[in-house]
């Protein structure tokens, strides 16, 4: 039986199941929980769980992590953790190339153990480009890639050979991929522009959020005391403290907001700008109005979303904007920059308040509007919650991802590039 002959699959297993019973996918990612560096780990954790529920046999090949098992089943997905190359290497990109040697070696053995009968190889970002492209050719399995973000956007241009190399690796991976997933129209447009791809090569499937994770019961008043006085409204920011997240503009908006509302600003996350932000608030004599929490445990962060009176996402560059989605799921009124993926998640005056990116006056306007008008705040937060539930549901995203795989397999089945 040819593995791309989908009609034969249900026949081979007795005709009792739908044709996708046997869809087998190998995902490659440099991070998977408990190894969590950026957003891909959580993305894969949720996506793989829901794909398994749809009957997709999901394998994830990823880097090892202290204390994590080399091979285990997580929510039905098979996770294989490979030696991430721990000998000193010259720099991050070179380490990544060396890690890919191990990843490709182990993934080759895995796919080989199924005699090459894997339907899709799914790569996540340039960090696994080497392994993914090699495996594609060796087994002649179609390659799908999710481009979560692009170097040219992360760095706001390409300035060094190091950045150009990463950009060209992304370009190579994009062109070797059968089709590409991007999480927003903004990212799709950026990827098509940066790598010269036609529109039909890129499919937009958004990121998701697990709404049920924000429905836990706890003593809100008691938890709130850890962050603010009872009479203070909590203004929450979640993100790395780096330039492109725009947190400096929120800090600049503090005096204007505080002239009208009694509030406490809680900044979750860390980054290179922390010291300069601290100096900025000290110079404004507002240090008692702000709290830098650093990185927070996931459970604490979820509670914090739930008790916050407003969540601000003031980014300058944002491929998607997962923090906005988390606020929506937690029923926290949202104030967000009208930029990138954020502008697609938030509908102004309906599921949030949009403000001009990089503009403290605009941010102050948005925040005070939400804090001073409880009826408005309630309206946007309930609409946002509905939207998170309806549009950004992982089960729905997994269904779209499965359809994406099936589309590729259909095209692959009609072509001549196959193992012979």
């Amino acid at each position: 039986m040819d593995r791309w002959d989908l009609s034969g699959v249900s026949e081979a297993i007795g005709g009792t199941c739908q044709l996708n019973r046997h869809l087998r996918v190998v995902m490659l990612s440099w991070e998977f929980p408990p190894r969590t560096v950026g957003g891909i780990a959580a993305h894969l954790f949720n996506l793989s769980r829901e794909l398994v529920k749809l009957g997709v046999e999901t394998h994830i090949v990823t880097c090892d992590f202290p204390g994590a098992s080399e091979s285990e089943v997580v929510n039905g997905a098979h996770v294989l953790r490979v030696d991430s190359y721990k000998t000193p290497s010259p720099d991050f990109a070179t380490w990544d190339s060396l890690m890919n040697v191990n990843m490709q070696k182990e993934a080759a053995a895995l796919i080989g153990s199924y005699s090459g009968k894997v339907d899709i190889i799914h790569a996540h970002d340039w960090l696994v480009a080497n392994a993914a492209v090699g495996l594609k050719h060796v087994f002649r399995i179609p390659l799908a890639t999710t481009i979560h973000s692009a170097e040219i956007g992360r760095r706001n241009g390409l300035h060094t050979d190091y950045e150009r190399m990463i950009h060209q690796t992304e370009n190579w991976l994009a062109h070797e991929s059968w089709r590409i997933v991007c999480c927003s129209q903004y990212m799709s447009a950026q990827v098509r522009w940066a790598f010269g791809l036609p529109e039909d090569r890129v499919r937009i499937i958004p990121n998701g959020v697990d709404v049920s994770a924000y429905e836990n019961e706890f003593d809100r008043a008691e938890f709130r005391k850890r962050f603010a006085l009872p009479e203070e409204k909590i203004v929450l920011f979640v993100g790395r403290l780096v330039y492109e997240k725009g947190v400096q503009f929120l800090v600049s908006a503090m005096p204007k907001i505080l002239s009208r509302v009694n509030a406490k600003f809680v900044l979750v996350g860390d980054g290179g700008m922390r010291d300069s932000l601290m100096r900025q608030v000290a110079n404004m004599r507002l240090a008692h109005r702000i709290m830098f929490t650093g990185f927070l445990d996931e459970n604490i962060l979820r509670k914090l979303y739930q008790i916050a009176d407003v969540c601000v996402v003031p980014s300058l560059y944002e491929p998607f904007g997962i923090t906005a989605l988390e606020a929506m799921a937690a029923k926290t009124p949202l104030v967000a920059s009208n930029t990138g993926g954020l502008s697609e998640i938030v509908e102004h005056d309906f599921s949030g308040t949009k403000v001009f990116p990089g503009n403290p006056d605009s941010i102050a306007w948005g925040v005070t509007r939400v804090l001073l008008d409880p009826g408005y705040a309630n309206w946007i937060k309930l609409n946002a919650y509905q939207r998170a539930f309806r549009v950004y549901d992982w089960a729905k995203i997994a269904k779209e991802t499965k359809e994406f795989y099936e589309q590729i397999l259909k095209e692959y089945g009609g072509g001549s590039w196959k193992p012979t």
Partner: protein
Amino acid sequence: MRVIIFTWEFPPRITGQLAYYVNRLAAELVKKNVDVYVVTYNDSWIGFHQGADGIKAYRISDKVRPHINVLTWMLSLNQEAERVAADIYYLVKHEVDLIDVHDWHFVPAAVTLKRALKIPFVFSIDSIEPHRSQNSDTPLSSSIRSMESLGMSEAARILVKSEWMKQELKRHYNTSDNMIEIVSPDAESWIDGILAAYRKRLEAPAN
């Protein structure tokens, strides 16, 4: 017998004496009725070429440039070597007996092809990193050394050109005696020695 040779230099691209050696090796193997494919790097002349000597050469080039060092360059070039080797494999209906990989550059590709398509490889050593870098322990050098170690632990046989190199491998990599085959290129029976080493691999149980 059908053999794919991986080498990072092959005429007209000549950076050291390895290019001449591999050229002579491939030509002699052809005379012994071995079906020889050479997969090699060339900056501009890419694709398939079969010369009057009967050697079938596939020249590959960078898909990614610029690069920041020799490792990122070679390690992304390895995917091109895998692509071409897989194309040969599917073209000849899986009948590839052996890959002969010369020095560390294409070791990762050989390892993947062994794991994926069960094509064994022999690792032919012309020079090693401890000699080239004067025992440097910079991260770059130690990373290259780790690629050499990977090749030695995954290869079916290791071919060297002298007793001296054999001793050096034992000294630097703890390579076991019975893995190493010495075939001197100066010997009368050189090509027969190479073929014997290849065949020894073919008769051995797959590892």
